[in-house]
């Protein structure tokens, strides 16, 4: 089943009589459970494409279907509900809520969905343990390293088990080791929970680990390669990495 289906998708930006063709007639289908990267140089339209799929922006023309729903004509409220219930976001800059602890940040999305306190705390604690932050539940974001914050962001995106996670350059601000560790976690989540991951990236490590690589240039898909499914990396102890 296609979790994402784009047909002849176009997005133009008009500014002071200049029209920028950010996305030019893209057709793309992403199946459920894929671990896919969208790569390309800066300005190729990666982030714009993710924004359109995530309902943060609206297309100039074409159709977008996410998790079985055609969203190109959704109202802002419907898009907000879609983001809450079906899509998780991981940003380049972590973007945790600074006044909430790691646990509270992860619980927050579950709270938005109306999950009861006991259940959402249990889920959040488990997810944070899964990402190796079981002993840092009550730390504020400014008390965590970049890698740890991004793990909290991953946990937040995953806690309500959305159908799709959109990750916009999630390793861009991390060193290689930390980035690799984070990818391991996301790959594990992809395998164990069947959550579809769609990355935008120009990190070679992410491109290497992706099972499908879609290359964009000037708003068009120039290549779309399905690679061999990679075996999941052996589970490494995360204890040392928490000190990175």
């Amino acid at each position: 089943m296609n979790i994402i289906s784009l047909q002849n998708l176009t997005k133009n930006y008009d500014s002071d009589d200049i029209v920028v063709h950010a996305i030019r007639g893209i057709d793309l289908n992403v199946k459920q459970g894929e671990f896919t990267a969208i790569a390309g140089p800066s300005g190729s339209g990666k982030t714009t494409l993710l924004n359109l799929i995530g309902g943060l922006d609206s297309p100039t023309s074409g159709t977008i279907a996410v998790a079985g729903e055609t969203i190109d004509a959704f109202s802002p409220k419907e898009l907000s509900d879609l983001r809450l219930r079906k899509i998780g976001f991981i940003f380049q800059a972590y973007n945790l809520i600074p006044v909430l602890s790691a646990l509270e940040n992860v619980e927050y999305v579950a709270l938005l969905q109306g999950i009861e306190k006991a259940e959402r705390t249990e889920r959040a604690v488990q997810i944070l343990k899964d990402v190796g932050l079981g002993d840092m539940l009550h730390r504020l974001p400014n008390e965590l390293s970049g890698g740890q914050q991004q793990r909290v962001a991953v946990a937040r995106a995953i806690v309500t088990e959305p159908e799709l996670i959109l990750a916009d350059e999630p390793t861009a601000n991390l060193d290689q080791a930390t980035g690799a560790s984070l990818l391991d976690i996301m790959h594990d989540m992809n395998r164990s929970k069947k959550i579809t991951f769609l990355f935008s990236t120009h990190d070679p490590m992410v491109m290497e680990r992706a099972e499908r690589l879609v290359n964009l240039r000037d708003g068009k898909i120039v290549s779309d390669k399905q690679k061999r499914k990679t075996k999941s990396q052996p589970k490494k102890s995360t204890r040392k990495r928490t000190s990175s």
Partner: protein
Amino acid sequence: MKILFQLGWRNLWRNKRRSLVVISSIAIGIFAMILSMGIMNGMNNQMVENTIKTSLGHIAIHRKGFQDDMKLTYHFTPNRRMIEVIEKDPRILAHAPRIKLQGMVRSSESSRGVMIVGIDPEKEKSVSNLFEYTLKDDGRFLERGDENAIMISQTTADKLNLIVGDKLVVMFQDREDEIVGIGLEIVGLFQSPIESFDKYVVFTTIRTLKETTGLNENISEITLVLKDKDRVDGVKGALREEINDGNLEILSWKDMAPNLVSAVRLFDTMMYFFFIIVFITVIFSVANTLVMAIMERFHEIGVMKCIGTRPSWIFNIVLFEALNLGFVGLFAGIIIGVPVNELLGFTGIDLSFYAESMRMFGTGSVIYPSIKPLDIIVATGIVLATTIIAAIYPAIKAARIKPLEALHYV
């Protein structure tokens, strides 16, 4: 809701200095409001108390029509049943008879129109402060055995150029409407907190007036003082049921001094209007702080909307932040303002350098501030309204932030 409140509370302390400045402004406003209310309440209470203790008492019993037209024709005889009912009521502290009539006092130099009040000197001590107002270093209070004695105010004595020991002529119409003039000796002077009272009232013994007016056993008024002023309506109602045969009017101090009641209400209302104006300025301070806070968190709010936070939640977070600002300021203002008020209520605020002005209002020169629970409720309501009004524009602005625009905002 709890998380929204928590977010609002924690966001408040992200910029401690800025928040403390706004909280301080609210606290100072509340402190000033409580102190002003306390002083105004003190002045109002003293105005009322002084009026009650100089002349009105808590309740007065008259012949019907006397209050509107204080003539000697409106007299009555206090019967035994009436006195029994009064003395049996545990709420009534004391009672005293009076004769009141309009007349004139005349000295060799001048004359003036006055209210002549005949009192039982011993009983009068229980129903008014006239004994306390008597100037003890020059003269004395009236005594039951006095014949042809009078007490006048220092103000009247100055006006008529009289001193203790001098004689003056008191003129009035008796029961037969005949003009009567009697010579009385000034045995004492008094000075009350109420200037208008001093100007227009003189006192003699009730015996002197009974004899000279021909009233005999009749009187104009029985004045009652209660143990608790707040029970005046209940006691009035009970007396009306038990002793009113249709010929009497039984009035509370509120009935006898409606202008005083209106004045108290007017002062209170003016105070509230003043505070509303002051807090309008606080609205702009709070709104400005919130707008700055939102601009600083523009990106963060965008992220929150990206992950599914509804605009109504964003609105409520900002609202709670404003309410937290307001209530911390309110709390700080109250914990400083109330003890200061209580202390000043104990020591008093000496305004004797404005003594003459204070006598015009009838408050006395030392004011004892006091606040009522309603004052704290009003202060809370004003802060609540202020912060909500201040938060509306910033909260709407925050709720309308477009996620994509905010994500790119640096």
